[in-house]
């Protein structure tokens, strides 16, 4: 809701500025603005009204505190022409988070109730698609690597695309986190640290996962 209000306000402000004489044209909204918004929504991700995900949002907030504390201990990440700085920073952040979350178990962020609800969302989404489309979702998902908490997402494997329409139904995450499929599991990945934070096992129906393949036609 807050996001929508902000977008509407920003649009109105832009329109007004465009018609006020002498007013300098406002530049297009930048991703930084949206990210700032998301930092707020990270405190109360959308849909905040939905009680099904309440404990999940609480756990995400708790994780983000750890992430931010770890982030403060490593050099800030800025654009650089030296890729070593990027990878060193990524590893440094992951190591700090691993220290803070030593012994973390599967289900600490995706609590059992959240896992159940999210599992239902994924199952419903798959059910709504023809089998060929279900297989298409999984065609580039790495199937043979079991996820493990606090480990790196294997850097040599592709990051399979999560269907955009499914993403619209899942609880919104702060910009530092994302959902991905790894095998039949839905993982929560820390993007900047390239770290598997948690996962819901076997969330993908067995049928399409067993056969794979992809619809080629538009």
């Amino acid at each position, binding site marked *: 809701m807050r996001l929508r209000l902000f977008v509407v306000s920003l649009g109105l402000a832009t329109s007004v500025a465009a018609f006020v004489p002498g007013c300098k*044209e406002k530049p297009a909204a930048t*991703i930084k603005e949206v990210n700032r918004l998301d930092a707020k929504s990270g405190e109360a991700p959308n849909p905040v009204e939905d009680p099904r995900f309440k404990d999940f949002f609480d756990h995400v907030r708790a994780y983000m505190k750890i992430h931010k504390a770890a982030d403060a201990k490593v050099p800030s990440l800025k654009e*650089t022409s030296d890729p070593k700085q*990027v990878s060193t920073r*990524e590893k440094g952040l992951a190591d700090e988070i691993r220290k803070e979350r030593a012994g973390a178990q599967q289900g600490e962020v995706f609590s059992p109730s959240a896992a159940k609800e999210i599992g239902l969302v994924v199952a419903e989404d798959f059910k709504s698609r023809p089998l060929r489309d279900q297989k298409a979702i999984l065609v580039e998902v790495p199937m043979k690597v079991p996820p493990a908490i606090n480990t790196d997402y294997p850097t040599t494997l592709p990051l*399979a695309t999560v269907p*955009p329409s499914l993403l619209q139904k899942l609880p919104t995450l702060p910009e530092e986190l994302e959902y991905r499929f790894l095998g039949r599991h839905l993982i929560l990945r820390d993007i900047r640290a*390239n770290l598997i934070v948690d996962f819901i096992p076997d969330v993908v129906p067995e049928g399409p996962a067993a056969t794979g393949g992809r619809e080629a036609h538009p």
Partner: protein
Amino acid sequence: MTRHAIRVPIAAMLLAGALSLTGTAQKVTLPLAKGSTKFAVIGDTGTGDKPQYDIGRRLEEYRRQVGFTFTIMVGDNIYGSERPQDFQKKFEIPYKPLLDAGVTFYAALGNHDDPNQRFYKPFNMNGDRFYTFTKGNIEFFVLDSNYMDRKQLDWFERAIKESKSDWKMAYFHHPLYSSGAAHGSEADLRTLLEPLFIKYGMDVVFAGHEHFYERVKPQKGIYYFTCGGSAKLRTGDIRKGSELTAKGDDRENTFMVVEVEKDVFSFQTVSSGGGIVDADSFQRPR
């Protein structure tokens, strides 16, 4: 023989002579208008293998003749491991002549790319997974099709709505329309993006992911190009008889060179062997 007719061959000979010192003269079909915006398109590049280097050399030959000043990358910029030496082998060395000549690269993320590539300065992503930039009368919308969440969609709608550029072009990794047998069209992504493209007047869309070249017949007034064969190649992958295809090539590695002058978009698609795979131009309907 008139004086004018004599001048042309002499000029051509001089040009050919100059090029022979620096590289091979290539057949250029672009108008090369003064003040136009010229750029190259490459996709699925980051292998570090010979085909990528061959395309890199061919790009440089074209740069010398066409004078493009920037290159857009439609994703899968670095395959496999992403150690510092991989950035050298899979980007900096194959495109060194371009980088040395001041050509800037603007990358989109593919499914084989670590999103932290956005912090690698030569990719000019400013630390963002999705971003815009403007060149001449074109605004480019660079999207992350790997993860099209609500935040990105909201941002994109706001950005394109506010765009004042004559031309609106988008690029991202996954093609909304494709005749590829291995992957095919990204129908799910299309459901979300196409209505916005239509509503806000997108003109041209570039994608990769499919390891071939395809120009799709205009869909709802929008031109779609897949240019994902600039290093990898999936031979024979374009479905024969596909109603989508205006022109395709899945036999050779390819790249595109584009020129936009006022309301005219001209392009030329070139193979690693130097052949012209496709070339045409069209006027922006307004």
